[in-house]
């Protein structure tokens, strides 16, 4: 079953009647993902995709009728926080938020609200989850990955595809790929997902794709050295990026020296993680 979702999922699409929502619902269904409902305020009662998916005005209503237990969010950024709150109140076990451009203050409020609740949030600004051959929640292309035993976690979008594709070309299979998104304030982080991979019987090794900024990778390095028995290989993007535009002194004080590609690479290496120089190299490291 790999991590986070199975083909038993009863998926709800929030923002299903938008262009992206509709297109990717089709793609997810083509991958045999069990999409049971859509939500689009004011359009409850409609059916989309040749009458295959019923649309509801609210998550609560959709859950009452269809028993949805997971949600993927495609609503515009200004409504995204509300959509996440609604999904949490609706009792979703898993929420995958694809939308990019969500205000950071909204996300900080979301994070406070999630405390003490059982909902797992992936994203926002992420490509979602793909368990090859079984289920796809989000927008990761389904045709560049084979089922297998490598877990993939990434903060990036298209860079994830690049890595999946390079594994695919080497005929290396993936248990689950989780795109956690690159926003500063988000749902699950590297450590949360590494924990799931460590516990997952179908996963034997993990590929981690990070980038500059924040200290998620540094935290992950510590977790790997402390808790992981499975091998981990990583690529960190941004070693040649221009020095970040720091936010005044405050940013420097809070982040200190962490956040640079060098800091992340060094920390990961010293905790036993193999580092790739470029994405395509990663298939050779595990």
């Amino acid at each position: 079953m790999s991590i986070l979702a199975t083909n038993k999922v009863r998926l709800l699409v929030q923002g299903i009647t938008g262009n992206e929502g509709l297109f990717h619902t089709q793609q997810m269904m083509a991958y045999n993902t069990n999409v049971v409902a859509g939500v689009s305020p004011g359009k409850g009662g409609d059916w989309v995709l040749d009458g295959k998916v019923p649309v509801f005005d609210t998550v609560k209503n959709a859950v009452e009728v269809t028993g949805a237990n997971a949600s993927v969010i495609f609503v515009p950024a200004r409504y995204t926080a509300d959509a996440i709150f609604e999904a949490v109140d609706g009792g979703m076990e898993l929420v995958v938020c694809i939308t990019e451009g969500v205000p950071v203050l909204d996300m900080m409020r979301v994070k406070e609200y999630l405390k003490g609740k059982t909902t797992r949030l992936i994203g926002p600004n992420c490509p979602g989850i793909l368990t090859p051959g079984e289920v796809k929640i989000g927008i990761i292309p389904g045709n560049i990955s084979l089922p297998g035993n490598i877990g993939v976690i990434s903060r990036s979008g298209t860079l994830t595809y690049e890595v999946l594709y390079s594994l695919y070309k080497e005929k290396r299979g993936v248990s689950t790929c989780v795109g956690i998104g690159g926003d500063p304030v988000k749902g699950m982080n590297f450590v949360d997902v590494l924990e799931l991979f460590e516990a997952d019987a179908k996963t034997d090794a993990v590929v981690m794709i990070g980038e500059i900024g924040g200290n998620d990778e540094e935290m992950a390095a510590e977790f790997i050295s402390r808790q992981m028995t499975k091998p981990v290989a990583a690529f960190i993007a941004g070693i040649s990026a221009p020095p970040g535009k720091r936010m005044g002194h405050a940013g420097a004080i809070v982040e200190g020296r962490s956040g640079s590609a060098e800091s992340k690479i060094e920390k990961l290496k010293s905790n036993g993680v193999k580092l790739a120089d470029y994405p395509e190299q990663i298939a050779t490291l595990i």
Partner: protein
Amino acid sequence: MKLHEYQAKNLYAKYNIPIPKGRIATSASEARRLCEELGGKVVVKAQVLVSGRGKAGGVRLVKTPEEAEEVTTSILSMKIKDLPVRKVLVDEAISISKEIYLGITNDRAAQKPVLIACGAGGVDIEEVAQKTPGKIAKMEVDSLLGLRDYQIRDIELSIDLPRQFWRPFGEIIYALWKVYTDCDATMAEINPLVITADNHLVALDAKIVLDENALFRHPDLADLRDIDGEDWAETQGRKFGVSFVKMEGDIGCMVNGAGLAMATMDIISHFGGKPANFLDIGGGASSEKVASAIRLILADRNVKAILINVFGGITRCDEVAEGIVRACRDVASDVPMVVRLVGTNEDKARQILSGASLVYADSLVEGAKKAIDMVRKEDK
């Protein structure tokens, strides 16, 4: 989005944070007049959207209107980190008895707003933070509950603020918190917040960065954007809806997705090349956007080759191909291009590009190597 010091101060003043008397000037004569109005002793401060202006000589204390005129002439002719100075802030000079640092930003690790204060404010605050982190007081705030009075008291205790200043300082902290949340700032800073010789608190400098993603909630603040004060290419990029950062190299890059764009630059560097820019066209880019992005790359005369790397997911390769064709038609350029397109509608894209004089690559490694080769040939 960064605001200028004077814009940030105006915003603070609306929240009753005390700021020095002062006004903006765009000419030396205006600065002279303001200096007269303000009583003779003023500080002339370059208004630029980068830090380090003090060390660059962009902040000067003057004692007479004549001196103000002279200094302003000199500052208005400066460039600070490549940005021209178009305005100066003329502020009354303040006698300082103590400098405090005060700031609020988003703490990624805590996933919360964090309030930072230090009894030793001023330009060396980052050094203080590194050498004596114990002097820096930090307080995480629950964004649903908001900043509470006891947190302010804890901060005041931590920086050993004499009790006579607790009330006015607390009011300033709370006001700064309001600015931060009301305006969707990602950073709001007062450095230094000074205690004057006659025991008043005054925000001597002000820095705000606004969350670009939240500007839709603040059309009035969005209007404060100073396009003249920004880097030209970045402004252009924003206009076309792409993310662009100029660099020093000679291989122009156009990629979809920030992570992949960085990885593309990294791989160029890894094999010995030098990227000329970071350019992310985002997801689902139109042919028009692609064409604009290529024109933007070509505007940089250092560029000797272009590497286009697109992994089509939401982005359709055929749209990208059409954009390339369009750009080649519009711009007379002999800069060679390496194109690597994978994913959605990849075959269609190849067809569209079949007539163009391009070099293809199947992988990112191959693409990078080919672009580097082209530059080397060029250099010979």
